[in-house]
């Protein structure tokens, strides 16, 4: 009995498992970074949509329509790869000699010097940006709606007291906008969390990849504990992990909502 416990504790704390636990950092990083960027892109998109200048408005509308019209996985894969290629192409125009380009046999990059090495963290960053872009489109919709929900009188009062357009925007409009945007942003955040499960598709050794490797059957004692296919157990852990994170996020958003809603939401007064 005691031996069993000791064995399982040992097994669950071996280096391979520790690496798995450590890989949660990628997921958490991508979620937080992606979330922050989604807000940034969301604000940008909402500003574009509100722009008086027609082309900008079109860009804003087009951005949110297109990104939402295709599967998130597709954009999630496309963006980092396309971005890498775009950067390499730009580098190529600077550094590649015509001979080097002619000598290049591989389909990409244009020449050897133009190659941009992407490691885990670069991919993670690009993955976060692509999460930010995809869910920024949703956030921009949410924020756009929330900006319009702020009562006109609040802004008028600010104007009447001589605040500049910028002061009105930041001190009153955006400040009050959050309250109306938070429920929607909470939804977007839940989506981002769930989308972090796709990191392994961008060659990041994330929790999903490690769960797969840990659960895979092993027949060779030299490799480690011999066991058959345990994958579903490991995935079950991830399944529960995500549910817990969702639950925690909900609680956190409720708390944020109470704070941000002070004075604005009557329910929040208790």
């Amino acid at each position, binding site marked *: 009995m005691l031996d069993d416990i000791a064995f399982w504790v040992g097994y669950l704390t*071996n280096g391979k498992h520790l690496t798995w636990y450590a890989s949660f950092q990628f997921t958490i990083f991508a979620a937080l970074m992606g979330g922050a960027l989604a807000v940034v892109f969301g604000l940008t998109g909402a500003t574009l949509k509100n722009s008086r200048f027609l082309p900008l408005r079109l860009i804003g509308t087009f951005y949110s329509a297109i990104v939402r019209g295709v599967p998130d996985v597709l954009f999630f894969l496309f963006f980092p790869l396309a971005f890498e290629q775009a950067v390499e192409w730009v580098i190529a125009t600077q550094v590649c000699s015509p001979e080097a380009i002619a000598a290049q046999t591989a389909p990409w990059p244009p020449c050897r010097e133009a190659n941009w090495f992407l490691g885990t963290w670069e991919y993670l960053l690009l993955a976060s940006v692509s999460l930010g872009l995809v869910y920024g489109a949703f956030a921009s919709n949410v924020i756009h709606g929330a900006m319009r929900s702020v009562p006109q009188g609040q802004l008028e009062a600010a104007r009447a007291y001589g605040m500049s357009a910028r002061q009105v925007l930041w001190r009153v409009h955006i400040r009050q906008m959050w309250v109306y945007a938070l429920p929607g942003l909470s939804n977007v955040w839940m989506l981002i969390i769930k989308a972090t499960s796709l990191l392994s598709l961008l060659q990041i050794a994330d929790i999903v990849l490690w769960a797969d490797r840990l659960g895979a059957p092993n*027949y060779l004692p030299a490799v480690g504990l011999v066991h058959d296919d345990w994958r579903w157990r490991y995935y079950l852990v991830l399944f529960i992990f995500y549910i817990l994170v969702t639950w925690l996020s909900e609680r956190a958003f409720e708390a944020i909502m109470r704070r941000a809603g002070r004075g604005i939401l009557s329910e929040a007064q208790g």
Partner: protein
Amino acid sequence: QETVRIATEGAYAPWNFLNDSGEPAGFEIDLGNAICEKAGLTCEWILNDWDSIIPNLLAGNYDLIMAGMSITEERLATIDFTQNYFPPDPSKFVAAPGSEFDFAALSGARIGVQSGTIQAAYAEENLADGNTIVSFATADQNMADLMAGNVDTILADGAYLEPIVTAAGGAIEFVGEEILIGGGVGAGLRKDEAELKTKIDDAITALKADGTVDALIAQWFEGQGPFFSE
């Protein structure tokens, strides 16, 4: 010292796998480190899924692939290989004991392969008629599906199957005949890396000559071979 980034899959024991410390280990890791030492390079190991391992090499995310990858004409069209560091090795079928196949006219079988392997290409070309080819992302998954009975047989590298069949203690057995495909396992690299290729090739030559390669094969494949020195 120049750094060489070497990609491996980490799911193809005993070639390459993740050991209990969570680090890449196995025949190719030992060999790769020996090569680097010989060639005066610094090695850095990178994990990459099998099905995108060539694309990511081409995309420049690493310089070398050591992932039990057989040298084939088709692959040579896109990437280059060093000389082999594992002798040509027949591919084999395994199945649960008691399965009856008529390999002369195989039909109605569900054949598991790892996608993107020479066996997958072979099966698609020669066995697709009348059989169902199921391709899996990893060799582990392929094996798991065989053990769980989702496929009737799998076709894979003999040297990969050998230790598993031994360890499985009768749960699976070799069936049918061996199929000779591929020109041994080599390290893949981009075509424009002539300099690197030379360095690695020289190192492999030296390591073959001094018996290191065979010693590592013996160490990792339970003394079974195949070996370079006959």
